[in-house]
């Protein structure tokens, strides 16, 4: 992996901080802030699936640190929450593709995590082999359709 693509500790700190702002912990504590995904390897899993996202994210993280430094408060990870959001908006204005890319990466990774699934009330297990129970059909709903009669055309 080239230097451009690699995530140095500095970039990782910026990534954790950015993810914490994109996906803050829920007020009820059931959902974690997004930064945990870096240490948990969830981002790397997504990068392995979508490798083209790595470079724009790396460039964007560098831009976050530069913007934070320009405020005399850098790096990005050292900012408080309000300042981080302001910097994210500032960088997004200069590079409109960065924030949507980061959000896509964050959402795809976050909602595939078992802990997050449990937090949204979804069973954190594979769909197979357990599947899901469903109620029997209420075929009485078809009564008006049957009563109306045929709608096909003779040919």
């Amino acid at each position, binding site marked *: 992996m080239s230097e451009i693509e690699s995530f140095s500790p500095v970039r990782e700190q910026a990534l954790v901080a950015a993810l914490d*702002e*994109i*996906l*803050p912990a*829920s*007020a009820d504590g059931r*959902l974690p802030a997004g930064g945990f995904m870096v240490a948990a390897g969830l981002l790397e*899993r*997504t990068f392995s*699936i*979508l490798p083209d996202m790595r470079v724009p994210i790396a460039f964007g993280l560098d831009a976050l640190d530069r913007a934070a430094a320009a405020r005399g408060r850098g790096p990005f990870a050292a900012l408080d929450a309000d300042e981080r*959001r302001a910097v*994210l908006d500032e960088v997004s204005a200069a590079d409109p593709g960065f*924030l949507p890319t980061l*959000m*896509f990466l*964050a*959402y*795809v990774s*976050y*909602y*595939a*995590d*078992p802990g*997050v*699934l449990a937090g*949204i009330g*979804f069973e*954190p*297990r*594979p*769909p*197979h*082999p*357990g*599947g*899901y*129970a*469903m*109620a*029997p*059909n*209420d*075929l009485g*709903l*078809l009564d*008006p*359709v*049957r009563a*109306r*009669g*045929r*709608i*096909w*055309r*003779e*040919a």
Partner: protein
Amino acid sequence: MSERIVDVLIVGAGASGAALAWSLAGSKLDVLCLEQGGWMKQEEYPSNEVAWELRRLTDFGLSPNDRKRPADYPVNDASSPIAVSNFNAVGGSTILFAGHFPRLHPSDFRARTLDGVGADWPLDYRTLAPFYDLNERMTGVSGLVGDPAYPSDPAKVPPLPPLPMGKLGETMARGFNRLGWHWWPSDSAIISEPWEGRAPCINAGTCLAGCAQGAKSSTDVTYWPVALRGGGVRLETGCRVREITVGADGLADGVIYWDAEGVERRQRAHVVVLACNGVGTPRLLLNSRSSLFPDGLANRSGLVGRNLMFHPYAMVTGLFDEPLEGYRGATGCCIMSQEFYETDAARGFLRGYSFEILRGLGPVFTALMAFGWGRLPWGPDHHGAYAEVFDRTAALVVIGEDLPEEVNTVTLDPELKDAHGVPAPKITYRLGENSERLMAHGAARAKEVLDAAGARETFCEPILRVAGWHLMGTARMGTDPETSVVNEWGRCHDVKNLFVIDGSIFPTAGAVNPTNTIQALALRIGDAMRRDLPALLD
């Protein structure tokens, strides 16, 4: 080089190739099928993982250009608003299909006569009906008898009861009832009860990423096991056919292909059958140029690769206040409506469309869809916004009848090639005016249904891009060699021992998923081959 000359060589082991192979098994014909993909393993399907949705972005993606499996070939679809969706394996695109399994209507076989557009088929509904019946038994179709959108054929009895509609389906059914519009439980190629040694659907909701349960009737679990036990049929995987060869007499005499080890081989045959779908088949014919056929094999009409039809799909998604349990149940097989199927010129277009109701989405795709709508903000409001959409969506897709137009084509790309250096297909396609009007009408009516069902907000995607599942028309069937490529038996007018049996041969598209019809046609052709193959070659 193999010196063994087989009687029937089938290229492609998907929907039609499997049905034909089964039909010919035990017939004393020596049948070989070459398939560029391999056998799928149910234990390797994504639904065995918690993060199964991520693999829909990669090795189980719908587009071969995203998926990039070794068996895939690239498709240049930059000149089309609709991208090709397929799969290359034993089972072909039935591996990833939703399993919707309706029949065409009687009127679909007579579009020219009834409505003055498209073309009449050289056969009719009644002729094909016995093969629909057979295919539905072999497939194990789940459905409900008595749909008033179809003739009350006593044999049209789905062998298994319908799949569960669930809370989502019944919510939508009430919406249709409020409008007085037709709806019916979907005919589904997914077994609702144990069938032929297979376990039934468990409502996992992962159909578009393959069925680990084996309940979805992809042909690797239906036709192929029986065909291979039936005698006289062999299937070789990992074999990519480069071209069909012809002798000095102008007849096909075999194919050249690369085997699973990458060794170039030649297989000779008395009869060659193409079952490679509406893109792969014209690609192979156009790549099979010779001095006798300088414009591509069987292409004296100039129609190979022309008249490409997709079914354009529009999707309208409704957002509801209550959870709909939409992640439960077969993804695409719930209920459907054919209220606007038959022509009513007062609508401003000819022919029609179906609605299919889609289940809800899993957690990842919920996030991606809401993100696409601009309804999933980052920051402190994110979790509240997500909770308002997760498990609260239901979608209608509009499946429109696409008319055959010669400007919509599959050609050979001058630069793009597959891993073996064979020219890749290039799609040039645009929606005709009739299709534009038809799709706009459908999207507006879909919104009405969602409103009637209680949606508080709707979102419309007028044309779904990676939705080119249905590939039709590119080697059309007909009686006139000037205006068609094959006859009613799929036999090429120009090459009397070369057959096409996939969706390429559809003269018109209808407005339903084509797999049941593709397979019924293959079974009819197989039945005729089995009874008297030489008669088909005259």
